[in-house]
Each structure stands twice: as C-alpha cells, then as structure tokens.
C-alpha cells in the first residue's frame, strides 16, 4: 500500500477556536507529523470558501486522507465527508478532530494548555487517519409503513398527514378514545375554535382512509429493529399482542397536568381547582360568577424551573369565556409574567383586559394567600405594580399548573432507546438542526412529549414529524453507515465470545467449505456498536472505522507526543 498522503485543516471557527487555540502553531505542528503532506488553517472551514480550499488542496497535493480539526463531528462530519467525496477522496478516509467543544470552549482561560491539547488531539487524529480504509455505504430497504405512538392532537396531526400522503400508518393510543388531554377541553384559544371540529376532522380523515389502522386501548410493549425495519409489539387490553413491521416511528405521547401538592389550599378547599378541572366545568356550561387565576403554580420554582409555555394563554382564554358568559363577573389573573407571545395571543391579552379582567403581578417571595370565607374563598395578594396588598373574594381559585411528562416516560424511553432530559421530556437530536428527530435514525418526536406546546404548535410539530418520517419511506431505501463489524476467518477460533456479546444476535458460528469454523456477522442486523470487538480476545473481530490497529495508533500518538513533552 502506498504511503498515505494526509492533509490537515485546522479551523479558526471565527474566534470560537482561535480565541484559545493558537491555530497557526497547531498547523505548524501538524506538518511535522508522519504522512502529513500539507497542513493549513481556515477562518470558517465549514463555509463554501473553506470547503473549496480543502477541495483545492486535495487536488493540488494529491491527498488521499483528510483530517479536519474544528467543531464536533456529531453535526459537521457529514458535511466534510461529502466535501471529500466531491474532491474524489472516499468519504470514509476522513477523520474529524474536535478542538472547539472539547478544547477552546472548555479551556478558554488556558490558551497554552489548550494549544498543546489541540496538538495532541490532531496527532491522534492523524495517526488514525493514516490507517483508515475506504468504505462504501450499503443500502437496506424501508418498510413503507409508519407507526405513531399517542393519539393526542400531535399524534392525530402526524397520522392524518402521513395517511394523506398515502402512507400506511398505525396509530397506537392507550386510552379507549382519541384526542388525549383535549377531550376535556371544549374550546381552543386564542381563536376560540371548537375542539370537536379539530379532533373530529382529523379522526374522520384517518378513519376514512384504508391506509390507517387505529389501535385503541393499546400500548407499545416492545420495539426492535432499526430505521426501515422496525418491529413494534402492540398489546391491546383484551386482544393478544400484535407485531407490526414499520419503517419509521413517531413518538407523540404528550404529557399530563401537574397535580398541585396542597398549594393555595388545593385539596382542602373545594373551590380551589386546576385549569383542567375548570375546563371540564366550562365544557358543561358551569360558569362561575367570579374567578381568580393563579399562574405558575408549581412552575418556575426551585425544583421545576421551566415555564410551561401556554398556561397564561389558557387562563386568558378561560377568563374571556367566563366574561362573555357572565359579563359582570369579577375575574383576576395573578401572574409573575404573562407569556402571551406572538400575534393572536397578545391580542387576546389586550382583549381580556378590555373586557375587565384584572391582571396583577405577584413575586415569588410574596405569594397570594387563599382562605375560606363562608362558602366561597378570599384571596390576598401584594400587587408589585400598585405596591399594595389587595383582597378579593371569589367563587373559584384556578391554579395554572405546568405540563409534566407522563408517568411511564422512563420505561417508554428505555423501550425506544432514546434519551430524556433532566425533567423527563424527550431529548431531540438537535434543538435547531433536527428539532423533531431523535439521534436514533428513524424515530421522530412531536408535541408536549418533547416540550409543552400549544395546540397549533402541536399540530405543526405533528406535521413536521410526519414530513421527516415520510422521507425514508418515500425514498424506499436507507443508507447504512459502514461502521459495522466484520471477522477475519483465518484469525477467528470460533470461541463464540462475540456471539454471546452481540445485543442484536447478528453473529453466528459458520463452517467454511474447507471445514474451518469462524464467526460471521450479518451486516444488515449489525448496528455498529463494537461489543463483539471488545469481547474478542485475538482481534479477529474488527469494526469498520474503529479498527483495533487504528485505536492503538491513537494511543501510541498520545504516548509519543504527550509523554515526550513531559520528560
């Protein structure tokens, strides 16, 4: 094999890297590394100009390996790999070195040490790059079926979008009816649209399509497989478990209203109710003569710091409904900020004020006090703007509590092999780059399961998830990244360690024509985790892109450069 010709490209990333790492010095150091033919640095490697510079350097210096030291491979590796391909270099003869998130941003005050560390990481990257082998992506088919978990507004929106695209869709809902939390809510603000119209419209669209299969009172109990080839086990309350084969999965499991733990006398005084309980009363036409809404109950407090996004708008909507039904009603909203962002929500806020709803701001240190007064309630609140304490009597006190994740979200996450954040909301792949996708390919997320969202946002996210989920199905094939395992029949002694270690049962012992027994990997099943490589004692089992020779070379590079520096 000819000696590799490696090009190293260090990125300034504006001043994100250059502020702590002496990029020129790292480039100088890179030139001294074995097999490095050229080392350059660039203001923005990921820009058109940066990528063009790399392509030109590949042509001029006849490079066959490229190392880029910049941000994180998790977001930019595909971009640089495609760039190599355009310059005629196999896109897997590319190594990415992270000197931004792993160096300049976390060693901002130690430029010397940061530059040294960047040099070490580049040395390790070059050592691995020298041993990289060209690879080709293999393709696997996609079952043209989608599965949506959760029949709330987000799930309904996703399912109806998929069905309208002519994609066969299974909608799984654990309750006996569709609609989720909205079944208790008659009217949706700020446009005051009847919930029935929205839900029934979607349910009809799904119901009337031969492509849709709705599984009510059913739960997903198991999910196996990978993008294009999922197998979901659905267990209905009465019927036996059913196995569904699908290409993509959308998670729309929603959330639930947090139940107050006695705040403001909840549970002791019947007049103190939550927003959902008020919605049920209003749906039955029971309008109170007076109401005091208390916002941020159990939200934006230590232990639950977040704002649940739409409770202010819900309170404003219900306040307006009460004022329209009882024009002389006394309605106040006690808040710590009114979050009516956007156009229609802000107009509703003005509209409520004009209709006589009183808005009073309270502070976390001076909470409103609620106590019984005869058969209705009395509320005292110190209003910051008026700098005065005001008392008022009221029929009901409505606590606007935040949306929290559903109880079994952890098991669901474990079953789906997807992460949840500290609060228990699902963690999307990237908040801006891929907001409706998980890092796991083929699984998508929408609605309050990701983050509390208003009805129109849930519908929009459902549509977004449906768009993403339809792409693999419309393409009909999915590329498998060549990081799968492979064995060397000569070296393998068929001890079976790898067969035992593989989580996907993708390896079996076979006998060659000459009677030699060895372990063989079924590439379509292999997910590229590398369990088998670690279980194999004589390196017969290897993983593409992470060979034991490559990783050992990285360790050697660190030993040679770091320890030499120390002595």
């Amino acid at each position, binding site marked *: 094999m000819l000696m590799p010709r490696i090009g190293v490209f260090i990125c300034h990333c504006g001043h994100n890297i250059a502020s702590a790492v002496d990029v020129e010095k790292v480039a100088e150091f890179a030139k001294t590394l074995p097999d490095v033919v050229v080392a350059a640095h660039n203001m923005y490697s990921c820009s058109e100009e940066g990528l063009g510079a790399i392509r030109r350097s590949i042509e001029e210096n006849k490079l066959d390996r490229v190392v880029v030291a910049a941000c994180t491979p998790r977001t930019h590796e595909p971009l640089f790999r495609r760039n190599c391909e355009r310059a005629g270099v196999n896109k897997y003869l590319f190594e990415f070195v992270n000197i931004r998130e792993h160096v300049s941003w976390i060693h901002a005050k130690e430029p010397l040490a940061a530059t040294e560390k960047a040099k070490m990481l580049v040395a390790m990257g070059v050592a691995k790059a020298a041993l990289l082998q060209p690879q080709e992506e293999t393709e696997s088919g996609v079952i043209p079926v989608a599965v949506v978990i959760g029949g709330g507004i987000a799930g309904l929106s996703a399912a109806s979008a998929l069905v309208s695209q002519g994609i066969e869709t299974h909608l799984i809902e654990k309750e006996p009816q569709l609609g989720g939390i909205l079944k208790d809510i008659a009217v949706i603000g700020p446009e005051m649209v009847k919930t029935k119209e929205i839900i029934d419209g979607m349910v009809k669209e799904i119901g009337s399509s031969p492509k849709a299969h709705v599984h009510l009172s059913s739960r997903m109990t198991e999910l196996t497989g990978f993008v294009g080839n999922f197998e979901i086990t659905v267990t209905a309350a009465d019927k036996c478990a059913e196995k569904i084969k699908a290409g993509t999965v959308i998670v729309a499991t929603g959330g639930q209203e947090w139940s107050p733990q006695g705040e403001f006398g909840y549970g002791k005084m019947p007049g103190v109710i939550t927003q959902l309980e008020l919605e049920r009363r209003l749906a039955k036409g029971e309008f109170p003569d007076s109401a005091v809404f208390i916002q941020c109950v159990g939200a934006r407090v230590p232990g639950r710091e977040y704002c649940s996004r739409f409770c202010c708008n819900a309170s404003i909507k219900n306040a307006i409904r009460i004022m329209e039904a009882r024009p002389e009603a006394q309605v106040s909203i006690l808040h710590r900020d009114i979050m009516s962002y956007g156009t229609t929500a802000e107009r509703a806020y003005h509209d409520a004020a004009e209709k006589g709803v009183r808005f009073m701001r309270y502070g976390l240190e001076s909470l409103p006090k609620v106590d019984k007064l005869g058969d209705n309630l009395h509320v005292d609140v110190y209003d910051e703007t008026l700098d005065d304490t005001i008392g008022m009597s009221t029929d009901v006190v409505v606590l606007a509590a935040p949306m929290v994740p559903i109880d079994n979200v952890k098991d669901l996450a474990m079953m789906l092999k997807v992460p949840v954040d500290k609060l228990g909301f699902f963690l999307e792949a990237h908040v801006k780059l891929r907001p409706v996708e998980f890092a796991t390919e083929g699984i998508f997320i929408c609605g309050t399961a990701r983050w509390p969202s208003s009805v129109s946002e849930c519908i929009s996210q459902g549509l977004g998830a449906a768009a993403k989920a339809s792409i693999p199905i419309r393409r009909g094939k999915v590329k498998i990244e060549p990081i799968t395992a492979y064995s060397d029949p*000569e*070296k393998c*002694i*068929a*001890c*079976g*360690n790898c067969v*035992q*270690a593989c989580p996907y049962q993708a390896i079996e*012992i076979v006998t060659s024509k000459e009677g030699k*027994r060895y372990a063989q990997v079924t590439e379509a099943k292999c997910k590229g985790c590398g369990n088998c490589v670690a*279980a194999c*004692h*004589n*390196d*017969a089992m290897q993983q593409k892109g992470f060979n*034991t*020779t490559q990783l*050992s*070379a990285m360790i050697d590079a660190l030993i040679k450069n770091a320890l030499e520096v120390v002595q």
Partner: protein
Amino acid sequence: MNDLGKALAKIAFEERGADFLLAARDESGNVAPVLVSKGEDVGDVRIDVPYQLVMVLTKLYPWLEKGKVAIVTRRCDEKALNELTKRGIFDAKRIIKVGLACSKEQVAKCRCSDPVPSRVDFGEPQKAAQDELSDRLLKMTAEDRMKFWIRQFRKCNKCFGCTTNCPVCFCDHSCVLEERELVAEKSIPPGVVFHLVRSFHLADKCIECGECERSCPADIPLLTLRKMVNADMKELYKYSAGDEKAVSPLLTTLEGEKLEDDADVC
C-alpha cells in the same frame, strides 16, 4: 501393558464404550502421550507425572471425525474440558472422562486448591494445598506489590511458554500478544501490558492447572497471579472457571442483577 493400563482400557473401552483412549505412558523412562483405538495395547500407563493430555486432545480432536475419546482427566483437566466445550472446541457427548485424583506430592507441587475430579476412577482424593504467596502479596502495600511484580516481569523473555502450554489458551496461531499494537516489538522483556492482558483474557477461563508457571523458564510465579485474579472474579461475580454450564460474567448482561442506574463501578 501394566495393570493400570489394563484397568484403564477396561473402564474406557468396555464400561464406557470409548472408541479411543488418550493416556500418558512410559517410554524408556520418559512419559509420553499415547492414543490407542479399541483393542490396541495402551502400554505401561503412568499417572505419577502431570501431563497436559487436554492440550494433546485439542490438537488430535479435529482428526477423530467420529467416535468417542476416553481421556484420563485430573480435576484441572476436567475443568479445562468444560471451558473448551463451552467455547465449542469439543462436543461433550464425544468425550469420556476417566477421573484421576492427584497424589499428595502432586497436589503440593501444584499448590492445587481443587485436586479431586467429580468422578474418581484412580488415585486417592487429597486435601487442597495452601498457597501463601498470593495472600502475602495482597497484604503488601501497592508499591511493594508492584516492585515485586516488576522484578518478576523483568525476567520474562517473551518465550510464550506460558501461552503455548496453557490448555484454555487456544488462540495459538493468532494470539494478540504477538501483535505489535499491544506489545511493542523488539522489547524484551515485554511491558507490564503483556501480563495484564493475559490475566484479563484468562480471568473467566483459568483453571489454575499451573502449567504456565511450570513451563516458565524464568520461574515467574504466574499461577499466583492467576489465583489472585480468580479470587477477584469469585468476589465480584461468584464465578469460578471450569463449571460445566456457567457462562462467563464478562459476556452476560445485568438482567439478573438489580438495574441500578447510577453505578459508579469502582
């Protein structure tokens, strides 16, 4: 054929229906392995000298397409056979074990802690011998223990005697310790990595037969190191190599144990 040979042939061929018999016999004063088929004279069988018949069986087995093989097995041989069978090297149905309980001297020489086979056909069962070296080492401070081992490892000249003669070490033609990625070439003695990796590979397989120590020209107390690691495995996972069915804990998942989430392991 001495009496022992006759008794052995009777058990193997008549009682237990073997087609072949593998034993060690006297050849002009030395001990050598012999493989005889039914009816052949097995010669003057010797059981007073420890001979790794399992190693021989591993080499011969591929050529004995059909038929059952009887083999004289001490307790360590039996455990070696179990480990190899678990790894698909042998088919348990074709192996007939003829149990040999080691003599007192042999147990002492091997410092063997588990001398009696599950079924004794020859020899008197003896008590396990004491091995005070590993206890003494564990009581040392870490620096002293390291100094001790560094002094020992410095004697190693990478002759691979320990791996070649180890019954459960069967990656013979592709042992990773011969690859320069792990053990730098041209470095005699090899770094500590040689002994660490070997200890890890044998952690769930070593049956403490002592062949490694016996075949080490530099007299490095390798059996002691194996025993220390085996003691660790027992303490961590209540696992000792040689059991017929137990799967190595290094390969299984935690499903049996409580799935505690935030396990900071050490």
